C-alpha cells in the first residue's frame, strides 16, 4: 500500500514536470536566448549561464524600425476589432437571450455554422473587392475581418452570460421608463462584464497573432507584427537569430501576460462556447 502510493506520487511528479517542460520550455528558451550574447546562442552544448545583454533588442530597434510600426498597427487593429466584436456581439447576444422563436434559433445556428467555413476561402473573392474599394493595406479591412470571425462565438458567449442576468431587472427598468438601448447600456452591460471579458480574450489573442489575413491583405502601411517577424524568418541574408528572438519575445510577452491574468475568462469562454449552441 505504501509503495503503491509512493509510486503514484512519483509518477504524478514526473508527469507534472513533463507537462511544464512541454508547455513552457519553448517560450522560456526563446526569451532567454534573446538575452544571450551572439556567440552563446549557438554554443554547443547550450549555455545556461551567461551574461545577459540587451544588444539584440537595441539592434532590433535600430535596424528593424518597421517591426515597431508593426506592433503599433497590431495594437490599433486589435483594439478596433475587439471593440467592434464586443459591441456587435453584446447587442445580438441580448436579443438571443431575451427572445426566442424558430427564426431566431435557426439564425443563431446559422451563425455558428458559417463560422466554421475556413477563412482562406473568403480571401479569394475579398482580395479583388478590397482592392476595388481601395481598402487594401488599411487597418479597417483587418479590423472588419477579425471582428467578423469572432462575432459568432461572441454572440453565443454573450447570450450564455446574459441568460444568467434575471429578466426582472430589464422589466423593472422598462417600467421605470428606460428605453431598450438604455437598459442594454446601463443595466445589462455592467452585469455582463465577465462575458464581455471572455469575448475580449478571444478576439485580442486572435487579432494580435493572426497571420493569414495580414499576409494577404496588407503590404506596408497596415503590416502587423507577426507579418514583420515572418519577413525576418525569410530574409535573404540569413536569419539573425538574436534579433528574431528579441522580436518574438516583444510580440509574445504582452499577450502572454494578458492570458495569464485573464485565464479565468479564457476557460469560461472555451467551456461555454464549445458546448452551448
Amino acid at each position, binding site marked *: 500500500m505504501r509503495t503503491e502510493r509512493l509510486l503514484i506520487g512519483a509518477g*504524478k511528479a514526473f508527469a507534472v514536470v513533463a*507537462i*511544464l517542460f512541454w*508547455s*513552457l520550455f*519553448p*517560450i522560456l*528558451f*526563446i526569451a532567454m536566448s534573446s538575452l544571450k550574447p551572439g556567440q552563446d546562442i549557438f*554554443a*554547443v552544448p*547550450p549555455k545556461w549561464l551567461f551574461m545577459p545583454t540587451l544588444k539584440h533588442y537595441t539592434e532590433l530597434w535600430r535596424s528593424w524600425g518597421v517591426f515597431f510600426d508593426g506592433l503599433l498597427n497590431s495594437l490599433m487593429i486589435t483594439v478596433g476589432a475587439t471593440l*467592434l466584436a464586443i459591441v*456587435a456581439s453584446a*447587442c*445580438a447576444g441580448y436579443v438571443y437571450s431575451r*427572445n426566442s422563436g424558430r427564426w431566431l434559433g435557426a439564425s443563431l445556428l446559422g451563425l*455558428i*455554422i*458559417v*463560422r*466554421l*467555413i*475556413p477563412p*482562406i*476561402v*473568403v480571401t*479569394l*473573392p*475579398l482580395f*479583388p473587392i478590397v482592392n476595388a474599394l481601395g481598402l487594401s493595406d488599411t487597418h479597417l479591412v483587418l479590423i*472588419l475581418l477579425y*471582428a*467578423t*470571425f469572432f*462575432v459568432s462565438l461572441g454572440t453565443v458567449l454573450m447570450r450564455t452570460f446574459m441568460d444568467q442576468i434575471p429578466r426582472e431587472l430589464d422589466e423593472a427598468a422598462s417600467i421605470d421608463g428606460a428605453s*431598450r438601448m438604455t437598459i*442594454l447600456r446601463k443595466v445589462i452591460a455592467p452585469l455582463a462584464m465577465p462575458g464581455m471579458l471572455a469575448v475580449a480574450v478571444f478576439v485580442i489573442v486572435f487579432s494580435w*497573432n*493572426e*497571420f493569414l489575413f495580414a499576409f494577404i491583405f496588407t503590404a506596408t502601411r497596415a503590416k502587423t507584427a507577426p507579418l514583420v*517577424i*515572418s519577413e525576418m*524568418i525569410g530574409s535573404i541574408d540569413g536569419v539573425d537569430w538574436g534579433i*528574431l*528572438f528579441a522580436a*518574438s519575445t516583444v*510580440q509574445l510577452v504582452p*499577450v*502572454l501576460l*494578458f*492570458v*495569464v491574468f485573464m485565464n479565468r475568462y*479564457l*476557460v469560461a469562454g*472555451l*467551456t461555454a462556447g*464549445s*458546448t*452551448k449552441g
Partner: protein
Amino acid sequence: MQLQRTARILPLLAPVHLLILSVIVLPSFYVMWLSLNTSSFGQAPSFVGLQNYWRVLSDPAFHSALLNTVILVVVAVHLELAVGLGMALLFASGLPFRRFLLVAVLAPYAVSEVTAVVMWRFLFDPDAGPVTLALRALSLPTLDWSFEPSHAMILIGLLTVWLHLPFTFIIVYAARLAIPAELYEAARIDGATRWQAFRRVTLPLLGPAMVIALLFRYIFAFRLFSEAWLLTKGGPARSTEVVAIYLYQEAFSFNAFGPAAATAWIMVLVSLLLAGAYVFLLRRGGLAHAH
C-alpha cells in the same frame, strides 16, 4: 405585434449579421460561382461547369496536399486528444499548485503561429538546436526537416499539437470536473477497480466532450495554413503542401482562380460536413453532460 417585435430587435441583430453576410456568406457564394468559371485577374470569366473541380481532383499536387492534410488531421488531432485526456485526468486526480499549473498549460494559447515557428525551428535546428543536440547525445535519430518531407510533416504536427493542446485539454478537463464525485464513490463501494471506474464512469461521461473537442479540432486542423507555410512554404518541391497552401498557391502564385475556388469549395464542403455532425450531436441532446 410580430412585426413590431421584429422592428425592435432588428437593429440590435444587424451589426453581427451584416458582418457575417458581407465577409463570409456572400463571398462564399461568390467563390462557388468562381469555381464554375475559368477566370483570373483582369480576364472575363466564362462558364466551364465542373471542369475546375475535375482539374483539382485529378491534380497529383492536390492528392499529395490532401494526403498530407488528412495525415496531419488524423495523427496530430488524436495524439492531442490522448495527451489532453491524460492531462485532464491528472489534473482532476488532485495536484498541488493547480492554479499555477493550469496557467502554465494555457500559455501556448497566447503564442502566435509565427512565434511558435521561430521557437520550433530553433529547437530543431539541424546544427545547434537544443532538441537536436539532446537527441544526438542520446544517439536517437534527429529531424532533418529542411530536406526530408516526412520529417517536416512531423515538425508541423508537433507544432500544431503544441499550439492547440490548451483548447483540447480545457474542454475535456471541464467535462471531467462536471462528473459528480458520488459516482466514483458508488463505484468504489461496489468494488470497482480504478481501471473499471475509468472504463465505466469516466469514459462514457467524457465521451460527448471528447467528440466536441475532436470535431472542432478536425475542422480547424483541416484549414491549417500558417504553421506549414512559415516552416517550409510547402517545399521542398511541393511535398509538404497542405490543402490550404495548395489553394493559396493556385490563387496567388499561379493566378488560377477557378481551380483555387474549386479547392475552396471542397474545403467548405468538408468543413460543413464535420459541422453537420456537430450540430446533429448538439440537437440530439446527447451533450447534456458536456457543459
